[in-house]
């Protein structure tokens, strides 16, 4: 297995630059997920690695060898497309063996490798069918099988589960995780679904507007986001973002008053506190809001979403911002009732006016 190294990788279409100098290392065998909002450049970056898009600047190395000018088929990568891109006039067997024909692999070996991959993916009984006669999940597995038989150094997945229904997506997610464990391949995976990103990735790379916002393990990003964008993007439901004003700051502590919410001012530890009077943003995850907690807020319940094992409670204070709480048991709660919510300041995040994390 080979790793990947992206050094100041850039992409421009004419005068418009869409990828702005991406630096990234993907270790051999690592499962790396690119995630970000629509148009952030994650698919473009993947296609640059595949060789389907030219690289305008910087260097791409796979297994230590520069790949900028290397033909896509010689990069040692295989790609699974969002649309599957199966050849509709060929059977599953022909689809899976297509790439090996051009590597001049003998026919009996092609057959053996296709049979092996089909067995791993439970496709053996479908080998003589055409893609039209397969379900979405089966097509997806054929697309993955086509990648596997080529024994690539790096697997590239471009939103592979986005055309499947929720149940099948869950199943395929587990399949892909199992596959990664079994063949230990290096995988670069693009998705806009953060559940996929959180559950599959060894490393998540969050992109915004063609730049890497933060890269790290899923829990690093969740527990220690670098900025308000990452904090809002990772985690579902989103982190609650509340406006606050600095009342006083000294000796590694800051005293804050929430804007638009009836709550007592409270203190937070901060190594480099901002100046009194500064506006900041306080981020609190829904699960860190509870009916207890040191800082109390008087809210009115607006909507309860019962998920069975837990509930998402949407509440607000007067005309202030709406907050989401994740509560383990809230069967007695009803719309219009007052809720006493609270949080522990030590679990909250603080961001400056530009969205940068204050630590």
């Amino acid at each position: 297995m080979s790793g990947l190294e992206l050094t100041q990788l850039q992409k421009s279409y004419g005068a418009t630059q869409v990828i702005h100098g991406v630096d990234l290392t993907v270790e051999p065998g690592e499962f790396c997920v690119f995630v970000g909002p629509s148009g952030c450049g994650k698919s473009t970056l993947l296609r640059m690695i595949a060789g389907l898009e030219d690289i305008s600047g910087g260097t791409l190395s796979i297994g230590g060898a520069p790949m900028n000018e290397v033909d896509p088929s010689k990069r040692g990568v295989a790609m699974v497309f969002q649309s599957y891109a199966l050849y509709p006039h060929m059977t599953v067997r022909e689809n899976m063996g297509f790439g090996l024909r051009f590597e001049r692999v003998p026919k009996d070996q092609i057959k053996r490798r296709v049979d092996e991959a089909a067995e791993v993916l439970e496709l053996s009984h479908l080998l003589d069918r055409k893609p039209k006669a397969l379900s979405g999940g089966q097509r997806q597995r054929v697309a993955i099988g086509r990648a596997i038989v080529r024994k690539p150094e790096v697997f590239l997945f471009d939103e592979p589960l986005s055309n499947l229904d929720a149940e099948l997506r869950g199943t395929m997610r587990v399949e892909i995780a199992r596959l990664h464990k079994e063949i230990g391949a290096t995988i670069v995976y693009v998705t806009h679904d953060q559940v996929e990103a959180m559950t599959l990735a060894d490393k998540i790379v969050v992109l915004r507007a063609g730049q890497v916002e933060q890269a790290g393990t899923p829990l690093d990003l969740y527990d220690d986001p670098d900025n308000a964008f990452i904090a809002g993007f990772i985690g579902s439901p989103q982190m609650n973002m509340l406006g606050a004003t600095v009342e006083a700051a000294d000796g590694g502590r800051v005293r804050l008053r929430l804007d638009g919410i009836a709550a007592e001012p409270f203190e937070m530890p901060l190594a480099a506190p901002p100046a009194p009077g500064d506006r900041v943003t306080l981020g609190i995850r829904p699960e860190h809001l509870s009916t207890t907690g040191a800082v109390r807020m008087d809210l009115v319940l607006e909507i309860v979403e019962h998920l069975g094992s837990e509930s998402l409670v949407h509440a607000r204070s007067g005309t202030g911002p709406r907050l989401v709480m994740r509560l383990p048991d809230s069967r007695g709660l009803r719309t219009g009732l007052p809720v006493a919510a609270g949080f522990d300041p030590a679990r909250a995040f603080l961001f400056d006016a530009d969205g940068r994390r204050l630590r």
Partner: protein
Amino acid sequence: MSGQIDAPPRRRAGRMLPRMTALRRREALTGYLFILPAGIGLLAFFVLPTLRAAQISLTHWNLMRPAKWAGFENYARLWADAQFWDSMWITLCYVLYNIPVQTALGLLIAVLADRLAKSVALRAVIIAPYLISNVVAGLVWLLMLDPLIGMTNSFLGLLGLAPQGFLSSPDQSLISVAAISIWRHAGFTALLFYAGLQAIPKDLYEAARLDGASEAAMFRLITLPLLRPVLVFVLVTSIVGSFQVFDVIAVTTQGGPAGSTRAVLWYIYENAFQFSRMGYASAMSMVLFAILVLVTLAQMRLLRGDRSDLG
């Protein structure tokens, strides 16, 4: 819900179609209304004339006197008419000169336009010859291919090549007529192929590139198989059209020189309007019609033109 509960009683299933709901009936009626104008046109200009021609083919009729019943005499005469079969042979040669080149050229232009330049202006230029009528195209080429004053021979002279007879040479006339047809139709064929190419998803080519396929392999293994329904349509329409070549011959060679371009439609025309043998001409038309139906069915069957792998 269970299909068993909704299923009609068994004894009815065999002899009754599922009953249409009022909505389905209204939709069906709307559908028929939409195709009615085309249906009327088809009936008035194709079905009725064909039936009338079939009727005339069983008579002797010179347009002056009332038709006389002839039974299958015209068909028997046709069977023994060496000139009719010669004209069929000439037509077949014309089809064989015309179709492969026209189809290959159309396909080449379409693939190049699709892969290299998606320009609307280029497509307009490609289709321009098709916008000229056959008669005008024939007249223009009649002048350009004139052995004495035509610019084609002047051009050959510049290249140091000997002047050619083209339309006035019995050896070259049929090829020249085919060349005019290719010039006029290749662009239209290209446009049909171009439209077919747009229906092939681009990510198939990307997947093939990653699989290591060359441009030639992609053309052979992806483009051609997926273009099959369009290819069949183009072949059927252009072969049927080529069997009916008439106007270019009427303008340029009028069946000559020495009968070298006497294609079957021109021979039918001669019999009908120069020798006033309407019954005989109609019999030949019916035979041509039957041959074209067979050719079309065979093509559809062999090339599975009614089935697409796309969609």
